[in-house]
Every structure is written in C-alpha cells, then in structure tokens.
C-alpha cells in the first residue's frame, strides 16, 4: 500500500487506497464501506486530494494514450497520464499543451478536476477550456461521455469539480502547434507594485505567457518589487538549439529540519533572486522546462519544508484598484512569514467552462508558507478578510484552511454544483467547506 499525501503534506489523514489500473474496471463501490475520491499524482497542496477515513482511487497506472491526430493535434488519453508524459510524446511531434500549470507532474484527471491555469491564462483560459470531452464513471456503474454538447451540465460540473462528480477515466484534449521546444522570454525588473500593473498591461497584448515573481519580504517603497517575465513560443530562429538533457530532476533525499527555513535564509534567497538580473531588462531563449517548471528540477522539493509541511495561499482579487493586492502584500511582508516564490499574475477574461473553477478577472497571488502554528493561521485569517472584502476568492487546489462560510461566499454556486456530486464520492476538503467537519480553529 502506498502512502498518499498532498503536496503540502498537511493535513495528515488516515485513508485507504484502491488502484484503478484499467478504464474498463467497475468501481465496485458496494464493496467499500466508506467514500472514495480519485487521486492522481498528489500535487494539489491542501486536502482537496485527501479523503480522511475514506478511500482513494489511485489512477496513476491508468496512463495509456488512446488516439492522436497529428493533423489536428487532438489527443485522447486515459486520465492517469501525466502532463510530463504528454509533453515527452507531443513536443518532438511539434505540439504543446494549450495550458500548463507550474508543474508537469500532474495527471490529466487532476488537471481537469482542479481546472488548472498557467502563465497564458489571459489569452488561453484554463486547462478545461481545451478539453473537448471525457468519460465520467459514476459509482452506480453509469459511464457518460461529457462534452459541451452531450451532458453539458456534468461537463461543466466536472471541470473544476475536485474529483467529486465521479471518476474521469479518459479525456480528449486539444494541443497547440509549436515550431520547437523553446520560448523567447523578456524579463523586466520592477521596483514596486504599480510598475507591475503597467508591465502587465504593456505585455499582455504582445505575449502569450506572462508571470511575475515578487519579493514577499520587501516593504515600504519596495513593496511588490520583482521580476516580470513575458514569453512567446520561439520562432524558427531557435530551431537548431540544443535540447538540454532530459532528467527527472535532482531528488531532495530527506525532510529538512525546521530551522533550515528561517527569516534569514528566506530573505537571502529573495534578495539574491531579485538581484540575479543586474540589468533592468533582458532577453533570453529558454527550453520549456526551466520556463514553465523551474521547481520540477528539484524532485520532491516539498521536503524542504520539513515534516510539518507547508501551506500555499492563492487568491484572486479584482484589480480595478490596486488596494486589495497591496493590502495583502503589506500584511505578508509585515508578518515576515512568506517563503521563496511568490507569484503574481493578472488573469484574463476568458470564461472557464467549469462552474467551480477558480480563475476570474483580476490579479492572482500565490505563495508558500511554512507552518508555524497559530501565527500562520492568524495571518491567513487576516488575508481572508481582505480577499473577502474585495470580492475575491481562494483556490481550492491550494487550500487547507478556509472556513466553510468563506468558501460558500466565494463559490455561491456550490449548492447547484452539489447536485452533480456522486453520492459515493467525498473528500476531506469538501467535508470541511461544507462545515460537516472541523477545519482549523478560527
């Protein structure tokens, strides 16, 4: 039996596992005495992929390709296929994922269930926007092929549906054509938050991929300083470049002790990272791996946070004025608790097909926090106040803390969504945000 945890390694729960290796398998739910939840590669951070006291349906071995049309770029595969496996297959054939999150070690099923987004959200929308259809296996044995035309309500409930509507056995996704595996990236160093918004506006027309790293410890006039990266798929000129050696990344072999990550090391990292680029602007051509997946180079990097695990906070707030995001950054900087990579991005207006999807127009901030007990939870509550007040919301795939009241306010459509939940499916996350179990003390 394998141990399944979430990427943040918090909370720690007790659950059983049941492998699903073939798409023709029946779920045999009647033989289980508890609820089930699909589990892929466990890259969601909090408890959305956990099922305390229940069972996980582990789909990783259900990872076969089913068909690929090299003319149109339409790929059909089982839901346990990872994005890394898709890239390995499609990049040499001149195709790329239409949307990818910051790690390629997620399954297609997980990408749909969390309706993940990436650096091109402002032009391409979410992962779900490029899913043409999938099969949903329900606990009563019914199999339905869902698409915008057939079973559209189950289609929109399952995209971003957190694995609760049944088991996705396979999916068909649309890839996009590329000329080579490289990206032309323009990096601009910015000194404060206003500049970030200026850069976003300037580059989002000309560049398909934009993202910023911000120094979450800088305060005062430096508040919100960082590096703004704008990229496009490289043209013919990059074709002859050498592709870096493929490797699974350098493993982090042990859990780091708690003191390894302290105010000093984090401040040093942030300062060094900010100053890694001396000039204000630079242009580079990079392979897709370092561009999209810098952290995948460190296999099991979550162990740096030690046994206690960590939390990620990702919110989106409207940015008609910069006050909410400034307020959030100020509180984080003041607390001194933030960690390595804080990511800031202006999201686009492309509407997701998923009814419970996280992205909406506004600016999104994501960053990690080592768990320091009550002070961390207190900070999260303060941030929640700002997000709520601004009409923003939190991302379920990253969350381990939000209250039931907040969730239901962020996603008022939850009641309609819950009609599509499979009666045999549940998760630790869902029970928490429905208020049926205690979350963290508030």
């Amino acid at each position, binding site marked *: 039996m394998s141990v399944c945890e979430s990427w943040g390694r918090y909370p720690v729960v007790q659950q059983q596992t049941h*492998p699903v290796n*073939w*798409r*023709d398998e029946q779920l045999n739910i009647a033989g289980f005495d508890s609820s089930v939840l699909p589990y892929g590669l466990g890259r969601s951070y909090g408890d959305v992929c956990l099922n305390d006291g229940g069972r996980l349906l582990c789909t990783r*071995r259900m990872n*076969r*390709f*089913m068909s*690929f049309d090299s003319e149109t770029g339409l790929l059909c595969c089982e839901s346990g296929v990872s994005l890394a496996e898709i890239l390995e*297959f499609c990049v040499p054939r001149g195709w790329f994922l239409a949307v990818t999150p910051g790690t390629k070690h997620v399954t297609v099923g997980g990408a749909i269930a969390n309706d993940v987004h990436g650096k091109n959200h402002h032009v391409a929308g979410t992962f779900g926007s490029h899913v043409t259809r999938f099969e949903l296996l329900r606990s009563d044995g019914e199999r339905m092929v869902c698409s915008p035309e057939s079973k559209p309500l189950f289609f929109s409930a399952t995209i971003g549906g957190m694995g609760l509507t049944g088991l996705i056995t396979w999916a068909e996704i649309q890839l996009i054509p590329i000329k080579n595996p490289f990206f032309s990236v323009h990096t601009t160093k910015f000194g404060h938050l206003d500049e970030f918004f200026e850069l976003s506006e300037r580059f989002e027309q000309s560049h398909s991929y934009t993202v910023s790293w911000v120094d979450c410890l800088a305060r005062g006039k430096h508040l919100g300083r960082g590096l703004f990266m704008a990229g496009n798929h490289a043209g013919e000129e990059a074709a002859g470049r050498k592709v870096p050696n493929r490797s699974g990344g350098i493993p982090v072999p042990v859990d780091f002790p708690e003191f390894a990550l302290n105010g000093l090391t984090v401040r040093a990292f942030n300062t060094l990272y900010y100053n890694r680029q001396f000039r204000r602007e630079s242009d580079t051509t990079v392979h897709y791996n370092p561009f999209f997946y810098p952290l995948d180079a460190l296999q099991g990097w979550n162990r740096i946070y030690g046994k206690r695990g960590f939390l990620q906070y990702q919110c989106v707030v409207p940015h008609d004025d910069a006050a909410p995001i400034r307020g959030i950054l100020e509180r984080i900087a003041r607390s001194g608790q933030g960690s390595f990579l804080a990511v800031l991005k202006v999201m686009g207006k492309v509407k997701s097909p998923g009814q419970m999807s996280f992205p909406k127009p506004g600016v999104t901030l994501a960053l990690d926090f080592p768990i320091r007990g009550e002070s961390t939870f207190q900070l999260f509550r303060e941030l929640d106040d700002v997000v709520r007040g601004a009409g923003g919301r939190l991302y379920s795939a990253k969350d381990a803390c939000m209250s039931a009241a907040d969730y239901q306010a962020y996603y008022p459509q939850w009641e309609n969504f819950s009609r599509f939940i499979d009666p045999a499916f549940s998760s630790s996350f869902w029970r928490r945000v429905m208020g049926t179990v205690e979350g963290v003390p508030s």
Partner: protein
Amino acid sequence: MSNVLIIGATSAIAQATARLLAERGDRFVLAGRGVERLQAIADDLKVRGARDVAVQDLDLNDFERHAGLIESAWQALSGIDTVLIAHGVLPDQTECQKDFGSAANAIQTNFTSAVSLLTLLANRFEEQKHGTIAVVSSVAGDRGRQSNYVYGSTKAAKSAFLSGLRGRLHKAGVAVITIKPGFVDTPMTAQFKKGLLWAQPEAIARGIVKAIDKKKNVVYLPGFWRCIMMIVKAVPESIFKKLSV
C-alpha cells in the same frame, strides 16, 4: 524495427517495455488475458509509434492453445525477432503452506506454462537461427526464503531452465535473457509497503530494452540487486535458516 511477441502483455513491466519498443516503430503481437485491456495497450503502442499491433486473448494456463498462439503470431509478424515472456503470479505464501492447490497454481502459471511456451519457441528460433528470447524471472529465485519460497522456487526453476536453454540456443545464434527484477511497484505487489529498494516498472523496462539490445545473459534490475543477491547467497545455510527473511 523488430517483430516482437509479448506474452503476458498486460503486466506492468511488459507494458512499460512495449512502450519503449513502440517508439522505435516495432511490430507487435500481444498475448494475454482480456481483449479490452489488450486493445487498450495496443492503441497506446500505436499512438507511440508501433507499426502494427495484433492481440491474442488467452489464458496462458490453457497449454493446448500455446501452439496456436505461437503459430498465429509467427504468421502475423512473418517471423519473430524478440519474445518477451512476462506473465506470472505472486501467490500468498501462507495460503500455499495450507493448501497445495495454491502452490500448484503458482507453479503452473510461473513455471510449467513458461516451459510449454519456451519448448515451442525454442524449436522455432533454433530453426530460424536468430532472435532473442527474454524471460522475466526474479531475484526471489536466487535463494528460497521462508517468507516467499513457493514463489521463489517457481522462479528458481525458471532461471535454471533458461540457463540450460541459453547453452542450447547459443549454437544457433539465439540469445536467451534471464531478467531478474527486484522489488517492483506494480499491481502484483500493490499490497506491500514500498521502501527505498523499490523500483518503478519504467526503470525495469529500460533495463530490459538495454539487455535485449546488448543480448545479455542474466540481468539484475536495477543493477544493485546483483550485489544484494551475492550477499544473500553467500550467507551459510546454518545462519540463513535462523534469519526471519
């Protein structure tokens, strides 16, 4: 490009190996149980670059069908360059101690059926005068351990059979490869707690393809198992019998 017959094609190790071979444009006959599952693998291999994939749905314990299987595979591919025999079961040791039936089942699946298939294949390959026969055995066959000796002895018998067959077919220019994986994280071992010594089937598959390409004799996968088993085999029986392994 080679013509490949995979017996026990639904096993995790066989699937992972077939994927690597498919990327080279090989042609396949996949034999195993469950036509839908074989077809799912066939589709996967075709997407990855296999030139041609046919499936044969059969219970490998049905020995009478072995000759038909080999004949039709030979026809379908017009000659076979590589055979991978990968089917097997991991019986419950305590069950086997209580009931000879369980042990007999394991012997039949892991050893007797392989002997039946290899007898047919060996004669064909001897006549053809080229090709490679790769068979998945196990490190468990290197020494019987009290926790797992029924499984271990089926694999020991297989390894011994292959060693003899290798000598016989060597003269005909046919390679016989004994593959000895250590602990592999597959559906067969789903109930075990996994530790540091465990490998993924993809890693084993890379080793198998390398062994086929280089026509190796006996490979331990991952390679460190050769050292582990050297030590395990060196322990005197008077001590080994007292170890709870």
